[in-house]
Every structure is written in structure tokens, then in C-alpha cells.
């Protein structure tokens, strides 16, 4: 028998004990499953809404400017009008002016020489433009393109076998607002909201479970026995942090599973059009935000470091919480703090700050990652400041873990209060300075 367990060994034993206790308590399992269940319920409601609203999908307006007076374009327009969930209207307007105004969804120009060219068995152009700010417009534009191609082959070429080439030259054109290379503020803001949501879904249950893992020990009078074992107290603290990280990982898996179930449900109830839209949305989002492999890795590393900081903070606060009621109160406050931090991104003019100011912001615990994501999105790629934010989060995690380990050495650990913890930290720093 060893007189002193290794740090990792003691921590591992504590972590495994917590995991075994977790699966023996219906209440704790309930807490663990809370977020995946919320996701599932949300998904069910969403799937139900899609199922019942499928027949009343918003219609896309197709404006046709027919300058050819309809001699040969009538059949074509009639064919386009069969596209689902569209409202075709023939209008008289200046094509170029409308194009500049962007006040259209899908627009088709049949030029005035169209009929003449078709009559002469010459290739006649048709111009399709769609507003790229709405993905459904793209689908309609491509449907028009496909129907026009079919019409070209089946109607014109079959009726006129001597024509060996396409009679109709279909030009398709996407028009979007602003410059493609500049990512707009809106996407940056969406990307800032995403980590906040991920933190919410992945970290809330672990925060509660970590907090009550210590307060239950206090209430069941097992904390003293735990600290009486021949293991360094910091190993016990590390064990609780490892347990918290296990919970984050486990919750993430459960949330992903819940998400997959929802995706399958959506696939079952939605039309193929909707699925295409979803795929297009992701592709569009990825393209517009400049979200590539490096961005994804840094983004998820950011989330991971935030999780470590939050779990370490939870373990620290769990030592200070005198009972479960206080632990529950704290587990409600932490997510609120994250929300406030996310809100600050809309209030503080970070983008207009100087470089030093931005770097200072990136070093703030939790908020630093949000700042990094925001600035990276605006820049259209990972900015150097992001790596500073990641290192800063790890630094804060170590500081919090160190503080927790230091406080755990307090002789009043069994009846710790905020005042006693502060004194312990102060004494610890003071003693170090004296040395």
C-alpha cells in the first residue's frame, strides 16, 4: 500500500466515484438529461410546426419582363408558372433599374429580339436574376433555368430537328447586397451568439452537477472523510474538475444525439425543397462568414477553454456554497453572467477600439473568446488576437484551479465562507511574499 497516492490517481478515483454516484441518483440523471430533453422537445415542436405549415410555405415572386411581345415566349412563361410555391407576374419595368434596386426576388428578362432570333433558328438569350439574400430565390431561379432547358430540348429542337444547337441561351445571375469580400456585421453577431448557445446547452447541467457534488458531500457529512484520506487536497479538487469536464463531454454527446434525432425527424416531415434550403443555408453561411477548417478548430478550442474556465469556477464556488440552495443560486448566476458578456459585444465598440484595447478585451475570462470570434468574423478569418484569447483562457483556468487548490488547504474547509476564503488567499500571497 502506498502512503501517498499520485496526484492523477487520486483525482481519477474521485472522478470515477462522482460518475458512479451520478448514475445512482435519478435526480442527478434528470439534471444531466435536462438540456438534451429541452433540445428534443424544441425539435419536436419545430418539426411539428414544419409539418403543419408545409402547405403554406411563403411564395416566391417571379417577375417576368417580356419585351418580345409573346410570339414565342408564351409557352415558356406558362411553363415557369407551374413551379411550386411561386407567384408569377408579368411586369413592365426597366430590367437594369430593378437589378440595381435589388427590390425583387426572381426576375426574368426576355429581350425584344427573342422572337426574331428563335424564328431565324438563332440562339436567343434569356436572363434570369435572383436576389441572393434569400436562399429560396436561388432554388426558384434554378427551376426556371431547368424548365427553360427542358423546353428548349423538347419543344424547339423536336419541332425543328434541323436545329443542332440550343436555341435559348439561359443566363443566370445572382445579385447580393454589398461586397462579397466584406463580411457584414449581422453574421459576426450571429457567430457571437452561437458560442453563447453552445455554452448554455453544454455547460448548464455540468455547472449544477459540479456545484451540488460538493454541497451534497457537505450535507451527507462525507467531505471531512474525503479530506481525511492520504491524498493531497488539490488532487481531490482536480478530481472534481475532471468530473465536470466529463459532464461537459457527456452532455455534448447527448446534445449532438438529440440534434441528430431532430435532424432525422425534420428529414421525415419536410419536403425535399426544405432540405435543399438547409444545405444551402449552411453552405451560404460558411461561404459568407469565411468559416473554414482553421476557424472551426479555433472556434471549438475557444468553446473548450471556456468550458474549462467555467467548470473550474464552479468547483471553486462549490467549496464556498454552504448548502444546495446556495449552489443552485450560483448555478443560475453563472449562465446569466455569460449572457451579460454576450450582450456587451453589442454595446462596447470593440471593432473601433485600438489594438491594445482589443488585446486587453481578449484577455478577459470567457468574454475574451467572444471578442475573438466577433473580430475574426469581421475580418473574415482567424485574427492573431484569437490565439491570445485562447492562451488567456487557459491562464485563467490555471489561476482559478490554483486558487481553488489553495482555498482547499484552508483549515476551515468544512465551514468555508467567502470571507475565510479571501483571508486564506490573502495569507497565502502574503506568506509567499515573506519567503
Amino acid at each position, binding site marked *: *500500500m*502506498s*502512503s*501517498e*497516492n499520485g496526484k492523477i*490517481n*487520486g483525482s481519477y*478515483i*474521485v472522478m470515477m*466515484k462522482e460518475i*458512479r*454516484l451520478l448514475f*445512482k*441518483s435519478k435526480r442527478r440523471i434528470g439534471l444531466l438529461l435536462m438540456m438534451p430533453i429541452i433540445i428534443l422537445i424544441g425539435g419536436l415542436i419545430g418539426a411539428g410546426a414544419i409539418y403543419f405549415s408545409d402547405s403554406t410555405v411563403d411564395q416566391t415572386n417571379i417577375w417576368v419582363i417580356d419585351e418580345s411581345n409573346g410570339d414565342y415566349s408564351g409557352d415558356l412563361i406558362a411553363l415557369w408558372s407551374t413551379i411550386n410555391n411561386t407567384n408569377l407576374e408579368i411586369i413592365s419595368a426597366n430590367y437594369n433599374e430593378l437589378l440595381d434596386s435589388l427590390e425583387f426576388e426572381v426576375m426574368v428578362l426576355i429581350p425584344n429580339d427573342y422572337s426574331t432570333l428563335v424564328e431565324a433558328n438563332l440562339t436567343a438569350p434569356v436572363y434570369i436574376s435572383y436576389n441572393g439574400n434569400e436562399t429560396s430565390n436561388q432554388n426558384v431561379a434554378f427551376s426556371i433555368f431547368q424548365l427553360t432547358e427542358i423546353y428548349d430540348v423538347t419543344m424547339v429542337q423536336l419541332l425543328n430537328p434541323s436545329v443542332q444547337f440550343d436555341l435559348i441561351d439561359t443566363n443566370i445571375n445572382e445579385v447580393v447586397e454589398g461586397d462579397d469580400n466584406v463580411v457584414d456585421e449581422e453574421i459576426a453577431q450571429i457567430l457571437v451568439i452561437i458560442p453563447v448557445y453552445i455554452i448554455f446547452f453544454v455547460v448548464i447541467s455540468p455547472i449544477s452537477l459540479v456545484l451540488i457534488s460538493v454541497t451534497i458531500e457537505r450535507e*451527507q*457529512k*462525507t467531505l*471531512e*472523510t*474525503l*479530506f*481525511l*484520506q*492520504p*491524498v*493531497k487536497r488539490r488532487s481531490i479538487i482536480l478530481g472534481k474538475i475532471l468530473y465536470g469536464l466529463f459532464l461537459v463531454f457527456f452532455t455534448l454527446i447527448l446534445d449532438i444525439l438529440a440534434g441528430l434525432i431532430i435532424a432525422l425527424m425534420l428529414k421525415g416531415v419536410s419536403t425535399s425543397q426544405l432540405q435543399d434550403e438547409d444545405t444551402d443555408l449552411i453552405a451560404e453561411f460558411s461561404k459568407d462568414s469565411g468559416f473554414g477548417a482553421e476557424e472551426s478548430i479555433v472556434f471549438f478550442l475557444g468553446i473548450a477553454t471556456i468550458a474549462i474556465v467555467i467548470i473550474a469556477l464552479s468547483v471553486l464556488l462549490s467549496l464556498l456554497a454552504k448548502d444546495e440552495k446556495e449552489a443552485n443560486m450560483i448555478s443560475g448566476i453563472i449562465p446569466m453572467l455569460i449572457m451579460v458578456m454576450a450582450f456587451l459585444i453589442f454595446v462596447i465598440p470593440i471593432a473601433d477600439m485600438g489594438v491594445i484595447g482589443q488585446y486587453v478585451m481578449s484577455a478577459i475570462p470567457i468574454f475574451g473568446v467572444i471578442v475573438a470570434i466577433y473580430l475574426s468574423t469581421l475580418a473574415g478569418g482567424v485574427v492573431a488576437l484569437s490565439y491570445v484569447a485562447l492562451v488567456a483562457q487557459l491562464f485563467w483556468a490555471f489561476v482559478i484551479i490554483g486558487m481553488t487548490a489553495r482555498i482547499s488547504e484552508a*483549515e*476551515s*474547509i*468544512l465551514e468555508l465562507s467567502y470571507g*475565510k476564503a479571501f*483571508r486564506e488567499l490573502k495569507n497565502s500571497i502574503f506568506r509567499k511574499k515573506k519567503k
Partner: protein
Amino acid sequence: MKSIVVVDEINKVYDSGTEALKSVSFDVKEGEIFGIIGVNGAGKSTLIRILTTMLRQSSGTCTVDGIDPSVAPESVRSLIGVLPQEAGMYEEFSIYENLKFIGQMQGLESNMLEDKINEVAGLLGVTDRLDTRISELSGGLKQRAMIARTLMGDPKLLFLDEPTTGLDVLVARKVRAIIRDLSKNMTIFLATHNMHEAYQLCSRVAILKEGEILMVDTPKQIFDDYKKGDQDFEDVIADILGIDEVDISVLEAEL
């Protein structure tokens, strides 16, 4: 005989200003059952917490098997078993799971763990209840399981803080018999306010009043030296502590 615990001029003042221990000195010989007698609030638990590394003394020195608890707490904790006054076990775990966890924390290898669990469960008579959840146990069985837990690390010195408090008479008798059996293989440091228990079990006792040691001797010697008329041991201690029988009964009724 070698001293396993040496306490020299220990003082303990809490942040609130309360003086819990005042110049306390004594030693505990290897193999004896050493009792600390005193009413609630006398400083018994504070003394045990200092010796078991949970508290630090304000001044003075103490050693456990030659090791200073404030200098090498993990080394001291590997030598001792402790049953705190307000101890508990993981309610959702069975006795077996509780013992296994403590055995692992004590550094027992997995091949030795099963044998040790069976050994201590046999000693405490809980073998047939090993798979029972703690929340389903009676008070007596829970106390036996908690003593079993203190033995998982093969301690040289066992600290028992009020081990029979709250137990009914028959269960308390059983626990005392267990303590007597255990003393054959280890030193026991027993804190109690039950004078009869101290008289029956302890080789020597220290009488603690308001943080001060009034005397250290064998219970029989104290009884012989201070007995007046037909007083029993409890009356003698009450006289020494300066409290009458009514006070003691009030204190015990509160427990």
C-alpha cells in the same frame, strides 16, 4: 512504551477569538485506548481535528508517530483512521462501494481491495449487508459500516470522536465491544462525554475542561483518588469538572 502521539503546549484560538485549547500537553502510548473526557464544547473535537490534519494549532507542537501533522499531513493521514463526530457515508452507495472507494483512496491495489473489504466487513459484522445501500441501514449498522471504513487503510492509530453518541444502549454496547477488539491491533484515541464508556474502555483518560487538561491518569486511579462516599465514576468526573449531575443529564438529553 513508545508514544505514538505527543502533544506539547498546544493552543488553538479561532478567528472569532474563542480559545478552544489552552496549553494542552499529553502523550498517547502505543497500543492503549486513550480517552479524552469532557462535556460538549470542551475542545475534544478541536484536539482531534488538529491531530488528524484538519486544523492547525495556533501555537505549540504535536506529532503523530513522530510526524508533525501540519508539516506532512498526507503522511499522517496514511497512518490514521478517523471517525469524526458528525460522519456520514455516500447514501446512494452500498457499504461495499463506500469501502471500495476509501480503499482506493488509501492506495490499496485492486487485488488486495476485495480481501480488505471482506476482512473489515467481517470484523464489524456487516458481511451479509455489504450490498445494502447506506440509506437503507439502521443507525447501528451505519455506525459499524463507518468504523469499518476507518479500518480500510490498516491504521496504526484510530481516532473515534463520540462513536456511541445517538446509538441505543444495545448497539452502543456492541460498538464498545468492537472498539475493545480493535485495540488489540492498534492504538485508539477516543473522545467521549460518556463517563461509563471511558471507564470501561480506556487505559488512560485526559479530562478536558474549557480547553484545558485538568488531569491525565487511568480511570481507576482517578476514581480511587477522587471518589467521595458511594459516588460512581460519572459523579467523580462531574465533581472534577465542577458540574452537578443535573447538568450532565441536561447535556446528555440535548444530544
